[in-house]
């Protein structure tokens, strides 16, 4: 039974989710003081939550008695869970729209494109947007940024963070009557503090790090997005044994999917492009080969369409193929400036 259906206050629910407890079973076996520590609330409050939870569970009666498979989750429960998680906005409305609201937590999304199209920009934007407080419609989470190429430039992250705070202050001023209470106390340094940056210099380091993330995220439960920029770089240099490469990549993909599911976070993998000879001509495709293309849940391709940057949903179990324009500005990723912007359905 998921947390969203418990009769507790919204802030208590928010704290449970932020700490990683999405279902009743995830915290029902804990002691109240353990829960209190994790949620940073009083022991009494934690005990109250657990009392309410076990009471609702008894009333619900939906659990294991019907011969369901151990460990399985019903589709109905999954639907409710999905609805509970706000998606991570990209700061571009059109792009958010084709993504169904933004980048989905609990899924692995691959984003690829030619050099200079804005992959790193989008990565940095997401690392910042995941931190948007719950009050402003965000997740209030932290980010892990795994840099394999050295593309992360902290000056740019600072610029985007400042712009994000500015935008939020503007919105806050417009929407809130009780401005004092909701006044944004974020400083760009706070935002930078919440991005955990890892630099890996070889494919073995990359794989080892992804294996280590399990432990790291258990200690930092508020991480809500893991960005790998780029997943490709180390796998393109001196790999003679392609079979090995395919095995390593698929192992890595499985690990990442498990991370996404277990900790309810978004995994975003940035990929490069290559030329492939298909049907008598060269075409652009994302790198790492055919088997890799099956590994990620969602696949988004960033490309040039005339003079504009577009994103195309290449593969997704729940989103339809569509493209949308976006732009890269000094503030980060934003809506495209052109007047005739429209979403093209394929």
């Amino acid at each position, binding site marked *: 039974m998921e947390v969203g259906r418990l009769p507790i206050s919204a802030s208590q629910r928010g704290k449970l989710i932020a700490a990683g407890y999405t279902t009743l079973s995830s915290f029902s076996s804990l002691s109240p003081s353990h829960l209190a520590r994790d949620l940073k609330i009083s022991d009494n409050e934690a005990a109250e939550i657990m009392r309410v939870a076990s009471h609702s569970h008894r009333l619900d009666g939906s659990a294991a008695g019907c011969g369901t498979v151990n460990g399985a989750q019903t589709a109905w429960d999954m639907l409710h869970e999905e609805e509970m998680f706000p998606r991570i906005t990209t700061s571009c409305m059109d792009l958010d729209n084709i993504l169904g609201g933004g980048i989905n937590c609990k899924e692995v999304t691959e984003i690829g494109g*030619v*050099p*200079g199209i804005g992959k*790193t920009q989008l990565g*940095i934007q997401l690392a910042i947007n995941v931190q948007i407080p719950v009050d402003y419609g965000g997740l209030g989470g932290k980010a*892990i940024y795994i840099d394999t*190429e*050295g*593309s*992360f*430039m*902290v*000056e*740019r*992250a*600072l610029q985007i963070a400042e712009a994000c705070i500015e935008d939020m202050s503007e919105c806050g001023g417009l929407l809130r009557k009780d401005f004092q209470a909701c006044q944004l106390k974020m400083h760009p*340094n706070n935002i*930078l*503090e*919440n*991005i*955990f*940056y*890892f*630099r890996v*210099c*070889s494919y073995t380091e990359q794989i*080892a790090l992804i294996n*280590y993330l399990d*432990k*790291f995220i258990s200690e930092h439960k508020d991480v809500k997005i893991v960005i790998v920029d780029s997943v*490709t770089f*180390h796998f*393109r*240099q*001196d*790999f*003679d044994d392609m079979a090995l490469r395919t095995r390593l990549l698929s192992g890595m993909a499985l690990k990442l999917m498990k991370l996404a599911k277990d900790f309810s976070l978004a995994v975003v993998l940035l990929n*490069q*492009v*290559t*030329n492939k*000879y*298909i049907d008598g*001509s*060269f*075409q*652009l*495709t994302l*790198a790492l080969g055919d088997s890799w293309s099956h590994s990620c849940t969602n696949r988004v*391709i960033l*490309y*040039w*369409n*005339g*003079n*504009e940057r577009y994103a*195309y949903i*290449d593969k997704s179990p729940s989103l339809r193929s569509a493209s949308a324009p976006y732009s890269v500005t000094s503030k980060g990723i934003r809506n495209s400036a052109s007047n005739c912007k429209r979403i093209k359905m*394929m």
Partner: protein
Amino acid sequence: MSNFVSFQALSLMELRVQNEHLAGHLPTHMKGLDEALCGGIPFGVLTELVGPAGIGKTQFCLKLSLLASLPASYGGLDGHVIYIDVESKFSSRRLIEIGVKSFPEIFHRKGMAQEMAGRIHVLRPASLSEFTESLQQIKISLLQNQVKLLVIDSMAALVTGEFEHGAPRQNTLGWHVSFIKSLAEFSRIPVVVTNQVRSQSRDEICHYYFQVQSWNETIEDRTRHDSHLVAALGINWAHAVTIRLVLEAKSDQRFIKVAKSPISPPLAFPFNITSSGILLLSDDGIELTGPDINAIHCQGHNDIINFGGESLQC
């Protein structure tokens, strides 16, 4: 086993932008370009200069080498420079000329020219394997902290002609790219690499499978791209460099364009080559929208290197 160190991005900022010399950038003394690049050529990453022959890449490198050797009071890095001169284009005479014209106060003092020029170490590897060996030695001198700039002029020339075609070349380049990038990062110095151009073959007018093109568009593209130049070394290399500066000649004017940069808007600056190096004609760049920022135009330059239309597969 947690050998992993994570930095919070904030500590990166404190380490680099706040504590490093000149906030982690080497100013080029071209005001518009320095502003676009948040201070100058960034430390710790690969900056590529690409353009047709004779456009000014080596001139740019000579000026940068000089700037890196200058004392800090003149906006330099007060350090040594390793200049890998593959095609024997390095001219010490021209270097001194640039120095004398740009910084007369320093260069007219007795012994200064010798000291500055004495900080620039020129290597002339005759083959890729010699270059590979010298990279190992370079790594050691970087660890000693005196070298403040590494210039490789040109990367394309090193790789050309080493192999017939296909896979071996790409893999070797891959190793070098990773190695050079890691050199840049651990020593936190700027690394500038020049690249050549070649004409774009028809096969390379690449689109994704979902980009449907009308027949007319295809014809237009073809005629446009017949005179189009692209950077050598392939798409893998294009992904690997952090900053790409394109030098080109268009409408009888030379331009330097910030074609790829995580920290800059897509700006083009008109420039001329003068006795004191490169001079920007305007510090307010022209903002180019669209992929045109990546295009390399070459009007009036005849000696373009053409690799015979062969395509580099990754």
